[in-house]
């Protein structure tokens, strides 16, 4: 029963996203701007370093960026803030009346929206990268990159819901999303591959969940056939979903809403 409800929420959200082309076009165009800027940066960086940096040449770096940026841009960047507003305003109390998990339904809805955005954004990214540097370096790894991207988006959504639940305690999670976003940008490997980090930071990053949200699909798409990365992602996804359910459960029990 509940799976059917999640599926309906997922489908309706995906349909709504397609039916609001304004927002979709803006996100995709913004993704294009990011890719343009970062490709200019890494092109110059590769040239001044004799062609490769930490094992990445410009071709593999550009394909890395297509996936690392695409997996992150797919998700509404202010999701944490919006969840926080719903919690802080007490609006979430209405959702608690339904005989289904609040956080489960929210993640299913957000996933529908994110996968549509991801599809459109990555289509643009693939066209841009193909035109600029040619096909991806390893076609077998491309086959792994797609499921990895879906797992990455799922893990990111689950973690964002856990993070946003801070609003149950401080009534304002607006600033939390800035911090969360930067963790994904940096230790998640969105801006640069973990291989460019100093050894200690790279080691720490691999113990945190954020690298499963951006680095993993990007590493695969950049030509590295490493199937074990999907297993790590799947394990983190389960842990993060469970974490979100627990934190929301505790938060919902302490929520005090007036009126409505």
């Amino acid at each position, binding site marked *: 029963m509940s799976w059917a409800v999640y599926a309906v929420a997922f489908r309706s959200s995906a349909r709504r996203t397609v039916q609001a082309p304004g927002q979709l076009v803006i996100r995709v*165009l*913004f993704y294009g701007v990011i890719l343009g*800027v970062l490709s200019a940066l890494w092109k*110059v960086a590769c040239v001044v370093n004799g062609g490769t*940096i930490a094992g990445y040449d410009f071709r593999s770096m550009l394909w890395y960026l297509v996936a690392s940026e695409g997996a992150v841009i797919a998700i509404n960047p202010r999701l944490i803030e919006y969840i926080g507003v719903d919690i802080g305003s007490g609006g979430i109390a209405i959702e608690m009346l339904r005989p289904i998990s609040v956080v489960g339904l929210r993640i299913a809805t957000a996933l529908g929206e994110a996968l549509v955005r991801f599809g459109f954004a990555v289509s643009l990214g693939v066209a841009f990268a193909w035109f600029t540097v040619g096909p991806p370096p390893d076609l077998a790894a491309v086959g792994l990159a797609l499921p990895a991207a879906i797992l990455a988006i799922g893990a990111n959504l689950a973690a964002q819901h856990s993070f946003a639940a801070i609003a149950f305690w401080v009534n304002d999670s607006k600033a939390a999303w*800035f911090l969360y976003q930067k*963790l994904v940008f940096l230790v998640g490997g969105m801006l*640069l591959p973990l291989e460019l980090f100093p050894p200690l930071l790279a080691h720490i990053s691999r113990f945190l969940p954020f690298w499963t949200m951006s680095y993993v699909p990007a590493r695969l798409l950049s030509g590295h056939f490493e199937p074990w990365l999907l297993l790590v992602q799947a394990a983190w996804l389960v842990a993060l979903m469970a974490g979100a359910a627990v934190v929301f459960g505790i938060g919902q029990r302490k929520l005090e809403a007036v009126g409505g």
Partner: protein
Amino acid sequence: MRAIATTMKTALIEAWTNRKSFWLQVSFMIANDLAIVVFWLLFFRKVGTVRGWDTGHVLVLFGVLANVTGIAMGILANARRLGQMVADGELDAVLALPVDPLLYLLVRRVDTALLGDLVFGPLIFVASGHVTAESSVVFVVASLCAAAFFVSFLVILGSVTLFIGGRGEQAELGFQALLMLASYPIDLFGGFIKLLLFTAIPAAFVTGLPTRLLTHFDWGEAGIFLGGSLGAVLLARLVFHSGLAHYRSGALWTRA
């Protein structure tokens, strides 16, 4: 002007009222800014100097950018929301007040989190190693002029909603693109994109030119920059006030 100053003071007091939340948000923002700086530190550690840019130059760039976002998105938080406010008919109550509507709208709301940038900007500028008495003055003046460019750009894009309708999507895209492009050294770009940065998306005036003035000061460029920022403000006012003639009431009289 007294009414505008009082409105601004009220908005700042409003942000300051919840001290715990204020400091939490400011701290988060500083941590957020630090993450970007860490990216550049890692980048230059691995890559070395790129087209004359090193860590020190990028720290100057981020010092200016943090000040600009602190002013444009923190103190004048409504600048980014102008198009959405127009679409929601939220100008009604403002137009009935005996104040300049654009100025009033801009100073009406403060975004607490972004105020953290105003702490971070000067700190990161000091860390850049480019601080002297003269450069400190240039830093303050250049940040104000760059903020004028940034806010004017947002006002112009938001005002477009008055002419073409919609929900201000073009303003959001422009905002994201400007912020993104202003976060990178201008010398990375060439040809058409560089031309774009000096015209349609004025990122060159938000960080490129201010950073250059702080590292290689030139009176001629400073004059052009000052004059340009004044021109941008006047243009933004002109577009907004021309657009008001097209504004359709949302019959919302309670959201001034």
